[in-house]
């Protein structure tokens, strides 16, 4: 596969390390009353769709960016590649 890195252009997927669903960005509030259940769902449950999937790839043999790649798990087609940092900010994550 080839991942079109937003900063570096097309790179072979072999340069990257895969982690999983980009929902891992949405770490729950550890102080919430429901934290125990929230963290269980966050850490363990996955939509695991057959189709479009937003997922986290780390450019380990490159610039060490974490990327959010939108990829189809049926065809492996990639429609979008973003810096995870930007996605995280857009989802309200900060410090």
């Amino acid at each position: 596969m080839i991942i079109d890195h937003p900063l570096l252009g097309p790179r072979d997927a072999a340069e990257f390390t895969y982690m999983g669903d980009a929902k891992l960005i949405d770490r729950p509030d550890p102080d919430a009353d429901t934290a125990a259940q929230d963290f269980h769902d966050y850490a363990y449950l996955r939509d695991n769709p057959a189709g479009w999937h937003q997922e986290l790839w780390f450019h380990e043999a490159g610039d060490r960016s974490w990327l959010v790649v939108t990829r189809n798990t049926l065809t492996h087609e990639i429609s979008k590649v973003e810096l995870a940092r930007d996605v995280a900010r857009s989802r309200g994550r900060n410090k």
Partner: protein
Amino acid sequence: MSQKNRIAGGQIDRAKTLKFSFDGRSYAGHPGDTLASALLANGVRLMGRSFKYHRPRGALSAGSEEPNALVELRGGARQEPNTRATTVELFDGLLAKSQNRMGSLRFDLLAINDRLSNFLTAGFYYKTFMWPAAFWEKLYEPVIRKAAGLGSLSGKDDPDVYDKGFLHCDLLIIGAGPAGLAAALTAGRAGADVILADEDFSMGGRLNSETFAVGDRSGADWAAQTVAELASLSNVRLMPRTTIIGAFDHGTYGGLERVSDHLHSPDAGKPRQILWRIYAKRALLCAGATERPIAFDNNDRPGVMLGAALRTYANRFGAAADRRVAIFTNNDDGHRTARDLHAKGVRISAVVDVRPDAPLHPDYQVLRGAQVVDTRGRLGLSFIDVRQADGTMRVVECGALGVSGGWNPNVHLTCHQRGLPVWDDAIAAFVPGENLPVGMAVAGAANGVFTTAGALRSGAAGAVAALDLGQTPDLPQTEDAPVNITPFWYVKGCARAWLDQQNDVTVKDVKLSHQEGFRSVEHLKRYTTLGMATDQGKTSNMGGLAIMAELAGKTIPQVGTTIFRPPYTPTAIGAFAGRHRGQGFHPTRLTPSHKWAQEQGAVFVEVGNWMRAQWFPQPGETHWRQSVDREVLATRKSVGVCDVTTLGKIDVQGTDAAAFLNTIYCNGFAKLAVGKVRYGLMLREDGIAMDDGTAARLAEDHFVVTTTTANALPVYRHMEFVHQCLFPDLDVQLISTTEAWAQYAVAGPNSRKLLEKIVDQDISNAAFPFMACANITVCGGLRARLFRISFSGELAYEIAVPTMYGDALIRRIMAEGAEFGVTPYGTEALGVMRIEKGHATGNEINGTTTAQNLGMGRMVSTKKDSIGAVLSRREGLNRADDLRQVGIKPVDPAEKVPAGAHLMNAQGPVDAVHDQGYVTSACYSPNLGHHIALGFLKNGGNRIGEELRLVSPLTGVETRVEIVSPHFIDPEGERLRA
């Protein structure tokens, strides 16, 4: 030996003669021959034996679809089993042996299987060999295994080198037949970056095998001329002898180039083969088509061949399979074979055409509406039995029979991404469907365009479309005959009519498969083994599908095909591995002191990709324990030095660096003073311990984090995740500096005295106490870092200098330490001292243990958020009888306490249910004079002093042990602070 079936013409170089040997007999051939063409020219039809029934077999085809003519090529370590004689380029001194036989090729004892064939039908083995149960492994299976298999591996290391390479292009053209050449010409002249790859050693595809003209010259000459023009274009890369084996994601193709297989052995410095990973913006598949046979009784005798293969042997190689040839066809292409052979002086015994309106020929008989129903001849064809249109039988004498059942487009690569082919009635074959791999188009016969003129047009048009060019070039006039075919798959009433010749799957087997309910194509394949041979059913699958369709009352497209999978043709495993074998399997990382340690005679050990000194044997030491014990004792007595560069180092800088580490580590880091180091434990988000190490605060906004050697990369990746994905606005920057700093542990009561001779600053206990850290200089100005941390439990430091000074520093330490008897120690002594001190490492932080298990439960701060804190509170991770890290010592000091052994109560059963824990790390402690160990014990914190049994049934150990504190040495930590 005369080449008795060598006929005129062809693209072989008759000026040169090549000697070769098959089954010990010498023959002669010419450059341009394949092994199969040379054997046929020499009158050799018998080339192999089939897999199951050991039936005598000759070449069926003239290409990579060959199921029968498989040989062991070359000898010694280069022996190459299952090599298709039809694709082996002849070279001088070529050595080949027939395979899968017991006895000689002519008298194969296992041919008895053919007599027993009625008992050995499809799937018979699923129904028997079950009693008595123990006989399967002891009797039945060994016999079956010995008889099975095809060729043999030598068992010796493959002596050749394989390379890997990477290519990029605008257009990858797969196949250099008329379509591929027209495409390459179009794209090449337009200036595009083109790769033209073909599995054959001579580009041109069928043009090299045909007699008709292309423009004003022969097809072969036009191909040669075109290849010459392409070769002159710097933007075109010609890759003959290169098979595109697979279409992978996003326009990535695998290509196997056979660099040296046509040579006796690779030239010096050259690989045998190269595996290319080709990144193609667009690809045009021009892979041609494969002729398919017709099934009839005993259609597998040597001499029964594909019609177009006979034509190839005659036209391209100047070889006749026999001087008398018959043809069996259901389409016009069979007649082309007859005409060409006739023109070459081969006698056409008869053309048997199933069609009542077959075209006639003045010079030989055409039997319209007739069928070949059987053949005769023990080791090769001598007669065929023909049933004529009126039902009468007729015997025709011939030494070769060309069978032409139509052509199947080579759709293989179009299906590698799960696309499905679609049925085309006009040619009675599957053609590529809509769902092609991204960027791929198909042209020529691969797309069902079977005329040469059509192939040229579609190839050129394919290039125009792929590259968005304006116009197609002028193309030469050539053959444009329509396809006339009447689908005909098998002769009714036949029984032992072969479909899959290699695996001996007959029409009868397909019928049995249907009868027993194995009716889906995948069941048919798996039950009968149809299409599972080394040719993957290239010539056999269609016949099987057609017969299954008929039996099931369905159409062929309703039955469908099995899945096409890479590689297109079998590919040497060595090519996929490339140079990643032997010492090159993984990269080797050397520490800064490696050269110096080598000079000291160190014994090295693989630690991941690193090589680390394991111990430093001294003269007179005959056992590793002597060296290790000495290193440990010397360090604890005076001073030792150890290269700890391999531990991960991560530089953490920024105004939020402390806040960041406070999140990363379960224990607090926010208030760590500048100039101080703190031990830190990192959890995964699931609450399990991930890694431990130290973080040194060199400045308000600057920390240096260390990790274990094994986790250097995962921890760094994790920290970047936490930063970039969870807390993107923290002002912190991370960089791995593992390779940037050479780092040595200097440990022992004299370590300060030694370092004072090297370090430029005051490092007295007052100025530089336990857990201090600083940017310093050494040797009069070289920048360095000093950390007063201890893994050994002694007064100790770790000192780091830029890697390029690492070698100099170890030499300086050794020189300055001579007065203290400084002792270099390796990973073994390091391990002994950390076990004596009770420090956990990868054996204890093994991915399943918690801070609690490690005796560090109280470190998990409840006052702050940190990764893993929430889930570490789950009930299952906080049970009263949790495993706790303990120390273990033998009751009898002479006994060992081996790692991997399990703990059992002093009394009671020894089994899994009563398991109390296990030993994680063990060693001999030269300071205590007996073996010691660390381990995990249920409720271990409350069981200090208890006696248990340590059992290792695997290694025959059962011994009594006492549970003690894991801190065997200096539990109060006085030495650290000295």
